[in-house]
C-alpha cells in the first residue's frame, strides 16, 4: 500500500494480543471486542427509523408507570394535605364526654369536672360546653325541627378549638351575659342566615337572641358546626337553664397527650370513670389517611398489571424484530460479533424501549399528579423514590422481556442468517 507512510500511530486500541516480533510460532489470538459505548449504540440501532413502532411499544410501559406515579403522587399529595391540616390544628386536642349511662342516655359530667381538668399539669387550655335541652328557630312562626343544638359555653371555647369566625365575633365576657348567639357554620346555613346584615335574630325558648357572629367550620369537631352558642350567664339568667357540662375540650402540651388521656376519665369522674369517654378528634383524620392507603395499594396493583402487560408487549415486538432482522444479525455475526454481543444488543434494545416508556410514564404521571393536586387545592408531593423506582422497574422489566428474544437472536445460525430469503 502506497499510503504506508512513517506516520507514527500509537492508537491505544492497537492489538490485544502479542506485538509484532514476538517469538515465531506463538500465534496472536484474535478476539472480538465490543466497547461498552458501542454496545449501547447497537442497542439503540434497531430503534432508528422505527420511531412510531418504538413509541407504540413503549406506550404500554408508559401507561403502567404513569398510573403508578400518578397513584402514588396523588395519594401522597392528598395525605400530605391531610397531615398538614392535622399538623395545623394539632393532635393535642382531647375531648371528654359523658359516656352512656346504664340507661342508655348520654351521662352528664360532674359540675366540677372543668375545674378538675384545668388542674392537670400539662393541660394548657380547657373549655366546657353544656348542651341545653331546647331548640332554636329563625322566628316564632317557623318552628320546624332542624336538628340544631343550643350550647352554653365560655368565650374561651373558640381558642381551645382553634376555630375562626366567618363574620362578626365570638362571645366575650360582656356578650356572654346578653341575649346574643353565635352560629356554627351548618346552623347558620339551616337558619338561613348568611351574614349579619340587617341584624338577624333567632328564637330560643320564646326569647329573641341577636346573632353577633357566624363561625367557620371546625376542622376537628364537625358536630359543633350544628350548634348555636350562647354565654353561660345568659343561659342561666335568661333561659333559666341549669348548666351541666356535656363535653370538655382541652389542649395539652404535645408531648403529654397520651399521659393526660390516661388520667382524664378518672380526673373528671373519680367515682364512675367508665362513664366518661375520652377521644382525640385528630384520630379521625389519621384514619382517613389510612383508608386512602388501602385504595392506593389497589390502584398500585392495577398499575403493576398495566406494567406487566407492557412488558409482554415489548417481548412480543422484540421477537418480531429478531425475525425481521435475520440478515442484520447474520451480517453482524459475519463481521465478528459473538453470540453474546448479539444477545446484549437485543437486551439493550428491549431495555431502552422500556426505559423510554418509563421516562414517558413518569412525565405523564407527574403532570397528572400536579394537575389533580392543583384542582383539589392540595399540596403537591411526588415521592422521588416512586420516580426512581419507576425507572428501575421499567429497565429491569425491559431487560427481562428482552431475554428470550435475545437468546433466539444469539442462537441464529450465522450461515443461515446471511442467506437471502
Amino acid at each position, binding site marked *: 500500500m502506497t*499510503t504506508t507512510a512513517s506516520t507514527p500511530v500509537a492508537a491505544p486500541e492497537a492489538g490485544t494480543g502479542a506485538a509484532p516480533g514476538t517469538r515465531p510460532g506463538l*500465534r496472536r489470538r484474535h*478476539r472480538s*471486542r465490543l466497547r461498552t459505548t*458501542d454496545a449501547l449504540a447497537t442497542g439503540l*440501532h434497531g430503534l432508528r427509523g422505527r420511531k412510531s413502532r418504538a413509541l407504540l411499544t413503549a406506550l404500554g410501559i408508559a401507561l403502567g408507570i404513569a398510573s403508578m406515579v400518578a397513584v402514588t403522587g396523588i395519594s401522597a399529595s392528598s395525605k400530605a394535605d391531610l397531615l398538614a391540616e392535622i399538623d395545623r390544628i394539632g393532635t393535642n386536642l382531647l375531648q371528654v364526654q359523658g359516656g352512656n349511662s346504664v340507661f342508655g342516655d348520654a351521662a352528664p359530667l360532674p359540675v366540677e369536672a372543668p375545674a378538675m381538668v384545668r388542674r392537670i399539669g400539662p393541660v394548657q387550655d380547657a373549655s366546657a360546653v353544656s348542651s341545653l335541652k331546647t331548640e332554636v328557630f329563625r322566628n316564632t312562626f317557623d318552628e320546624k325541627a332542624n336538628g340544631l343544638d343550643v350550647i352554653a359555653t365560655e368565650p374561651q371555647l373558640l381558642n381551645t378549638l382553634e376555630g375562626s369566625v366567618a363574620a362578626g365575633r365570638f362571645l366575650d365576657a360582656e356578650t356572654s351575659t346578653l341575649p346574643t348567639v353565635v352560629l356554627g357554620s351548618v346552623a347558620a346555613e339551616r337558619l338561613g342566615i348568611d351574614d349579619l346584615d340587617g341584624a338577624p335574630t333567632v328564637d330560643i325558648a320564646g326569647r329573641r337572641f341577636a346573632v353577633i357572629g357566624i363561625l367557620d367550620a371546625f376542622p376537628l369537631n364537625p358536630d359543633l358546626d350544628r350548634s348555636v352558642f350562647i354565654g353561660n350567664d345568659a343561659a342561666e339568667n335568661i333561659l333559666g337553664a341549669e348548666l351541666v357540662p356535656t363535653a370538655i375540650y382541652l389542649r395539652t402540651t404535645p408531648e403529654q397527650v397520651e399521659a393526660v388521656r390516661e388520667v382524664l376519665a378518672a380526673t373528671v369522674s373519680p367515682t364512675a370513670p367508665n362513664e366518661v369517654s375520652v377521644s382525640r378528634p385528630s384520630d379521625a383524620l389519621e384514619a382517613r389517611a389510612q383508608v386512602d392507603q388501602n385504595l392506593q395499594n389497589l390502584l398500585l396493583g392495577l398499575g403493576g398489571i398495566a406494567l406487566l402487560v407492557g412488558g409482554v408487549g415489548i417481548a412480543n415486538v422484540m421477537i418480531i424484530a429478531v425475525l425481521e432482522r435475520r440478515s442484520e444479525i447474520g451480517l453482524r455475526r459475519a463481521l*465478528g460479533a*459473538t*453470540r453474546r454481543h448479539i444477545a446484549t444488543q437485543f437486551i439493550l434494545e428491549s431495555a431502552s424501549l422500556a426505559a423510554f416508556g418509563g421516562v414517558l410514564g413518569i412525565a405523564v404521571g407527574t403532570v397528572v399528579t400536579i394537575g389533580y393536586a392543583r384542582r383539589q387545592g392540595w399540596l403537591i408531593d411526588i415521592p422521588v423514590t416512586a420516580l426512581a423506582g419507576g425507572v428501575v422497574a421499567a429497565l429491569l422489566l425491559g431487560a427481562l422481556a428482552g431475554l428470550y428474544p435475545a437468546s433466539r437472536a444469539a442462537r441464529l445460525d450465522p450461515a443461515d442468517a446471511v442467506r437471502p430469503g
Partner: protein
Amino acid sequence: MSLATVIDPSTEASPSGGDEVLVLDEVSKHYPTTPPVVALDSVSLTITRGELVAIVGASGSGKSTLLNIVGTLDRPTAGRVLIEGTATTDLSDTGLAGLRSNRIGFVFQQFHLLEQVPAIENVATGLLYRGVSGRTRRRLAREALVRVGLEHRINHLPSKLSGGERQRVAIARAIVGEPAIVLADEPTGNLDSRTSEDIVALLRRLHREGSTIVVITHDRELAESLPRRVTIRDGRIVGDERVTTAGAAAS
C-alpha cells in the same frame, strides 16, 4: 497511514513463515437429511497471500457451503480448515467470531447494508467488533470509501445509492479492517452487466494493491477474467487453472 499498525500489528509479521492464507485439507460437509446430502466431498485447496481466485460452479455445486466453511460461518463435517495457520476446528464459536472480526472480510450478493445509517457508518461497522474507537473507525472508513471511489457518497444513506454504489460500500466495509482474506459471494449477482464490470475492476484493483480475494460465482465469464479459477461440481473440485497473464492482460 498504515492500517496494519493501527489495528493489527501481526498482519505483516505473519508467523509460521508460510504465505498460505487459506488451506482446506480434505474438507467434507454432509447434511444428515434423508437421503443424506454430501455438499462437499474431500475438498483440498490452498490460497496464498495476494491471490485473486474465482470459485466457480453452478447452483447446488457446493460453492455456497464452501464459502460458509471458509468464512467460518459453518463448520465442516470432516477435514481441516486453516486460516493463516490457525485451525478453525480448534476454535470455539467465540473464537471463530474473533477470527472473522480480525481476519475475514465479507461481500454479499444482497449487500447487507444497515439501511438506517449512512455509508460511512456502514463501513465503520466493519471494525465495530474489534474494539476500535469510534473516531478511528470513522477515519479508516472514510479512507476505505475513498479507496472504492465513493468519497462523494460518504454521508448518503444506502437508500440514496445505486446498486453499484451499495456494493462498493459493502466492499469498503470488507476491506476497512485489512483482513487476511476477502470473501465475495456473487458480488455482481444483483447488478447489471456494466456495473458488474466496474465492481470486478474494483476487485482487481484492490488485488493489485495487495488484498487476497476469493470470488464465489456461477458466472463463467466473470471467472474467466480472474487470474485463478477453481471449478467446483457436485461438491468436488474439478478444475484449478491459473492464467498468469490474466491480470496483466486485463489491465
